[in-house]
């Protein structure tokens, strides 16, 4: 081999090494582990015989042990070049029994890149079907009132409304205004193997960072979100149209006191509906007909030694399906209490009363009393922490560090 050939091989080895990153230690990212175990004993007392095949709606009384909504998540985050950060999250939760999702549902499988002003998310994760979170035991406790419902769902599970495969871009203005454009593939009961986008939308949310909560501003969060489902037009078979929903939300600090904290959250969802639905004969009709829903919740949080001590919430919701001939509406009352019995460990009590009226009774039953007592253990820990959050008090008030 000639000398110049050797030189080329030598240089080739030099420069190829950089691409593989094959030798030496890579920088260990931040690793975050989070879990929540929520276990309750539920007592149901139901009236009416629903056509929707969900065991907890069956008429009569029953008591069950419930660990649904418990979850485990693991994530990793690290700095990228030019001030960006990358993140991945893998997580699963335990759905309700008999929901067709199996014992475990992988609700978080996503990657995200972000910098100070931009967030891009790809993968399965929480959707934009709700704004803000209410202090119910489980996220789906009043789902018919505080979530835009997935019209492709069969209604036997709640995860169809909460999670989807998403493409999402958010632009952040002045650390508080979040403008998001998104497209989703929502789970479809009738076409489960179709992974094309069947939803698009956008939201504008003004959100006071958590680290600024003691600034005592009255508005904690306010926003609107539009979610539009690409759905077959019932009046023109073979062609599609959009089923549009608009959600608006406000979270108010009523009494932002460090010991006696009171806030109030209110959500309104307008479903613009599909034309021609005048009767509720199926769950599809329920999610695709015109409706207005409201849900509000007031919360009192008592803090002791700078940590939560106990919390009491009271909420109510009302939903009206105005285009249904025989009339259809529903309302819910809910109250609960969390009491801290140790670090990360809460004792829970919740009562919920739900009434369906008019044409909703054959689908969902007449009414339900639900009483729950249980325990919750949640834990979240970041290992190998190496950079700050966008919304930390240092980054917000003393100069952002990339």
């Amino acid at each position: 081999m000639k000398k110049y050939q050797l030189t080329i091989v030598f240089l080739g080895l030099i420069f190829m090494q950089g691409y593989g990153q094959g030798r030496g230690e890579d920088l260990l990212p931040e690793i975050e582990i989070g879990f929540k175990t929520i276990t309750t004993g539920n007592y149901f007392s139901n009236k009416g015989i629903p056509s929707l095949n969900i065991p907890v709606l069956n008429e009569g009384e029953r008591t069950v042990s419930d660990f649904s909504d418990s979850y485990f998540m693991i994530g990793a985050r690290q700095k990228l070049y030019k001030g960006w950060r990358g993140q991945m999250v893998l997580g699963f939760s335990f759905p309700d029994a008999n929901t067709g999702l199996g014992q475990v549902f992988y609700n978080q499988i996503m990657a995200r890149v972000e910098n100070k002003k931009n967030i891009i998310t790809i993968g399965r994760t929480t959707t934009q079907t709700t704004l803000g979170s209410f202090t119910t035991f489980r996220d789906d406790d009043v789902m018919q009132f505080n979530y835009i419902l997935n019209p492709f769902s069969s209604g036997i599970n709640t995860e169809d409304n909460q999670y989807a495969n998403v493409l999402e871009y958010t632009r952040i203005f002045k650390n508080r205004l979040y403008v998001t454009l998104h497209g989703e593939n929502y789970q479809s009961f009738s076409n489960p193997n179709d992974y094309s986008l069947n939803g698009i939308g956008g939201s504008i949310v003004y959100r006071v960072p958590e680290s600024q909560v003691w600034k005592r501003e009255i508005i904690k969060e306010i926003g609107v979100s539009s979610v539009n489902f690409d759905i077959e037009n019932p009046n023109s078979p073979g062609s599609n149209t959009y089923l549009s929903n608009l959600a608006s939300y406000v979270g108010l600090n009523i009494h932002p006191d460090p010991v006696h904290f009171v806030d109030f959250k209110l959500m309104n969802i307008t479903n613009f509906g599909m034309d021609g639905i005048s009767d509720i004969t199926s769950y599809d009709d329920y999610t695709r007909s015109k409706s207005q829903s409201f849900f509000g919740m007031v919360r009192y949080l008592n803090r002791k030694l700078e940590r939560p001590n106990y919390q009491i919430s009271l909420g109510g919701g009302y939903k009206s399906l105005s285009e249904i001939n025989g009339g259809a509406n529903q309302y819910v009352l809910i109250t609960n209490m969390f009491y801290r019995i140790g670090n990360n460990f809460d004792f829970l009590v919740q009562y919920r009363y739900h009434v369906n009226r008019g044409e909703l009774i054959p689908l969902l039953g007449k009414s339900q009393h639900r009483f729950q007592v249980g325990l919750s253990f949640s834990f979240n820990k970041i290992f190998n922490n190496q950079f700050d959050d966008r919304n930390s008090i240092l980054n917000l008030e003393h100069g952002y560090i990339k």
Partner: protein
Amino acid sequence: MDRRDFIATGALSTAGMIFFPGNLLAKESKELLKTKFPQPLPFKQDGEWKEFELYVDVKIQEPAPGFSFHTLAFNDMVPGPEIRVNYGDKVRVKFKNKSKLNHTIHWHGMHVPWRMDGVPMVSQLSVMPENEFIYEFEAKPIGTHFYHCHWGTVLHMQAGMFGSLIVEDPNDTIKKQFPYEREYTLIYSAHDVNFIRQEMNRMLERMEERSYLMSKGRFDHERWAVFNNHDQLNESIKNGWEPPYALNRRAPAGIPQADWFTVNGKSYPDTPYLFIKSGENIRVRLINAGAEIHNLHLHGHDFWMVADDGIPIPQPWKRNTVPLTPGKTYDIIIEGNNRGIWTFHDHDTRKVTNNGLYPGGNLLALVYEDLPEDELIISKYSGNPMYKNTGMNMNSNMKSMLMGDDKLPKIALDE
């Protein structure tokens, strides 16, 4: 030999003694160097008092190019400005707390009245946000001392709240024994920047609500975690104030593990260097304001140990390595008797790293100003055949690509 090994070999053969750009003797470099030593704090003469003003606030510090972290800084600088007074001066320091955390100032090594000692809850209450405290004392004893915050020292000291305090002796025996014109102050520290970030965030958040409760007259000893006596503490424990659950001062669970090591607030390659000339003596004041031991070793020289904690050593002795323990100050005299560029560094080489990567940390150099330019030429003085044409048959472009200019010193960083 692959690329990594190749570069590692190159770095080992060079980085042990070469650290700074070739223009370090240029006028611009010398001007920049002045900013890498503690800045003198001006004073106002008020009768018999020398009156200084210090304040503290949150600031972003860049110890090395490309890396920044939030610090607590006296007068917007880390370390704080240097207070330099004469023995016996009446010193008044007006301290303003512009941050939202509590602080005090302790005058380390000084014989101040006990109420001026700056130990919170022992000699004074802490200086709360937007409050001011006036320290007054007589400057004694002579020597190299320093000041630092004594509140939450695990955070506040490593976050940058320290500065040098020099009490000069008009009849300096050290200067008489080792005549010198130039002197340098080097303040060493070590930082767990992740601990600092998390702890400071939590502290600032907590102070938001504490300040609110104070303004409403609803703050109490349990939230403050400060008790008047044991009976009050025991009573609070019976009432549910239960350590460790109530003891939520520290953000990360463990003890801080320093990952950045600084001299005068900077890490290599931004550390200062010490100029000297052949035949010259320089005095170097070494201060350890951090919580790690630094075994400082000077290449090519033995230096005179002339003061320990500011106290002159009656019979100075020579050595080339000194363990600078936390809270310690040493004064050394370096004699310019071996021309060159010489490393002065922590021989615990874990501390010449930046977040684990060598070279970094408190690496610095003693630089002879009278070093002839041609002594910097690699191929002329190096015995390594790699730098000469007799070794690998590389043309000049290739050699330039791999070695850079045929001149030392270079900035050597991990690949």
